[in-house]
């Protein structure tokens, strides 16, 4: 039997569970060890250790009214709740709570697509709706709109947006929080709030205009714990006539500077509409000399270019992106892009895929780079490459954000490669991902394990990079719950005034401190200072 939350007696915990059962029905309250373990973080960096985060129970409502009922019980007993949407945010904590002992509010059953407007190109969904769900709905009903999907298609639109995740299509859609328009929130007091135009009862523009009247509060419900979001509207992309995926390659290490500068300019001018990935085909691989260079922390451009000259012609950098729109416009955009980049000696231009829409099912199935066309999949998953190789067991994403400057990308890869090498990890190459036109996110898939010794090494690596990257001006944009305290410390200027503001809001909005204590290190007054 799972333990009650800290500070709650077994008797009160059992009484609270009985009341929760009354709200959702016996089938949807999970309080046995076997059931509660299904909410374990399968990729936890604390797997099997005393500090691993565990739920005490889980409850799965099917309606806003049931969410309100759960909140009422939680206030009555001081029961900490931890809402999840689809619970598949695997590299950032999965379905496990930030604060051990919380009751997970599993919103997966709230999976209705409440509205899709082909005319207005919007949708309104509940928390349990996955990218697969909405994609299927659009395909089944032949609605010529695209979703913008996160890499794993079983993720939820709402959860990914609230954690400020991203995708690959046009900028208006791939910043998933920015692409939302209007939300409904059950506040910790049980009150229901609709934001933006949704607060005006007869408004016809809830999913069309974000701000409404007065302060725009939507932002406080992302990466936070100020309420349980039960509906969100999103803008959807009109299916384009065509798309062209291209690759631009450059031969030398320092060529990444004009390459990224130019692509940044083209993105800001809306000539390049999609996410841009700047990777190094040359730096990937396990050649011992390559691994040594990656981990050296300071190999010169000349060192790298010498290696490149003997590497069989692999380009040093390759930028991948997609144009969407009428074929004639795409041709002009691509031509302009080539003109702007032609000054880089040795630059190469390649068209890697082109499509006319709509695709048949067979054509959609054959698309290699699905997320760039709003097609959900799980293609990123995969654990084994050889019969005797140890399978990958999990990872956390370490996600520093840098300016869109090639020299910053070089400096970051030099730094993190050396940290990896110094701490006994194989330095992996990291791409610059321009989800936002004005920044690059450089994801590092930091491995997690099912044993404490290896996870201790992982945690040390992770913490070293969080601190080191912050010192260099590259703080992270998102972080696993186990490291959210550390992450918020990195945003601690002015003696932590931003964090204090968060907790001031927490006290006002959630006086009993029941919703997701500790998420993004925002603690309610009753628990403040109790965590190491």
């Amino acid at each position, binding site marked *: 039997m799972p333990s009650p939350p800290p500070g709650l007696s077994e008797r009160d915990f059992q009484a609270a569970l009985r009341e929760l059962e009354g709200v959702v029905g016996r089938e949807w309250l999970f309080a046995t060890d076997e059931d509660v373990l299904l909410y374990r973080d399968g990729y936890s960096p604390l797997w099997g250790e005393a500090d691993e985060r565990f739920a005490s129970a889980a409850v799965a409502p099917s309606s806003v009214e049931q969410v309100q009922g759960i909140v009422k019980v939680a206030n009555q007993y001081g029961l900490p709740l931890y809402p999840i949407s689809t619970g*598949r945010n695997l590299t950032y904590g*999965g379905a496990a709570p930030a604060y051990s002992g919380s009751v997970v509010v599993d919103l997966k059953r709230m*999976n209705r697509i409440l509205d899709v407007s082909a005319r207005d190109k919007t949708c309104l969904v509940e928390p349990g709706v996955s990218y697969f769900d909405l994609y299927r709905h659009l395909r089944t009903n032949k609605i010529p709109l695209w979703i913008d999907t996160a890499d794993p298609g079983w993720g939820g639109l709402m959860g990914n947006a609230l954690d400020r995740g991203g995708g690959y299509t046009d900028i208006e859609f791939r910043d998933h929080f920015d692409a939302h328009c209007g939300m409904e929130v059950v506040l910790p007091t049980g009150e229901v709030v609709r934001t933006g135009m949704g607060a005006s009862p007869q408004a016809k523009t809830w999913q069309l205009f974000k701000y409404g009247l007065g302060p725009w509060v939507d932002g406080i419900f992302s990466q936070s714990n100020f309420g349980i979001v039960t509906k969100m509207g999103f803008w959807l992309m009109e299916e384009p006539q065509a798309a062209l995926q291209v690759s631009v390659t450059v031969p030398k290490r320092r060529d990444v500077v004009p390459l990224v500068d130019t692509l940044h300019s083209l993105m800001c001018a809306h000539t390049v509409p999609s996410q841009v990935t700047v990777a190094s085909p040359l730096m990937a691989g396990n050649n011992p000399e390559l691994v040594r260079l990656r981990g050296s922390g300071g190999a010169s451009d000349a060192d790298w270019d010498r290696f490149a000259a003997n590497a069989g012609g692999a380009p040093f950098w390759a930028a991948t992106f997609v144009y969407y729109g009428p074929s004639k416009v795409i041709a002009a955009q691509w031509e302009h892009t080539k003109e702007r980049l032609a000054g880089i000696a040795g630059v190469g231009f390649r068209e890697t895929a082109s499509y006319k829409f709509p695709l048949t099912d067979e054509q959609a199935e054959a698309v290699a780079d699905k997320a760039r066309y709003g097609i959900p999949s799980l293609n990123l998953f995969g654990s084994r490459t*050889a*019969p005797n190789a140890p*399978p990958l067991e999990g990872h956390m994403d370490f996600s520093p954000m840098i300016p869109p400057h090639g020299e910053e990308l070089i400096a970051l890869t030099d730094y993190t490669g050396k940290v990896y090498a110094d701490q006994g990890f194989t330095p992996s190459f990291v791409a610059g991902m321009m989800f936002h036109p004005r920044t690059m996110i450089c994801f590092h898939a930091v491995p997690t394990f099912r044993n404490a010794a290896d996870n201790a090494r992982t945690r040390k690596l992770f913490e070293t990079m969080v601190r080191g990257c912050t010192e260099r001006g590259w703080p992270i944009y998102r972080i696993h719950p186990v490291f959210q305290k550390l992450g918020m410390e990195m945003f601690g200027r002015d003696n932590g005034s931003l964090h204090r503001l968060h907790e001031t809001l927490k006290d006002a909005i959630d006086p009993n401190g029941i919703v997701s204590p500790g998420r993004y290190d925002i603690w309610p007054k009753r628990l403040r200072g109790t965590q190491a």
Partner: protein
Amino acid sequence: MKCIAAVALFLTGTAAAQDAPFPIAAWSRTTAAAETQGSPVERGAAVFNNWCSACHSRGPQNAPGTASLQAKYQGSVPAALEDRRDLTPEVVKVFVRNGVAMMAPFRKTEVSDGDLEALAAYLARPR
């Protein structure tokens, strides 16, 4: 505002009687087999399509789980779960509820106990 009911399955029951029952399209890979009708095997086939096929279809181009099992077993057993003849209902349930390697466990709000029974019946069905 029009209201659209929760997703309804589009799979037909007759497909499960075939050896290669589902021409899986990417867009059919989705969630929530809650309202499936038909026999346990038919229901299990639908659960497989909803929850497993995005990783474990016959691919392996769009099936990383199949690719991983191919790497692990090197063809000594079929890499695609639907082609295995050695799976028992118990084995299926253990993997779904415990996960393995990168595959995290599936919760009961995703694959209910009833759906899991059906899935196990489908993958372990006599052929």
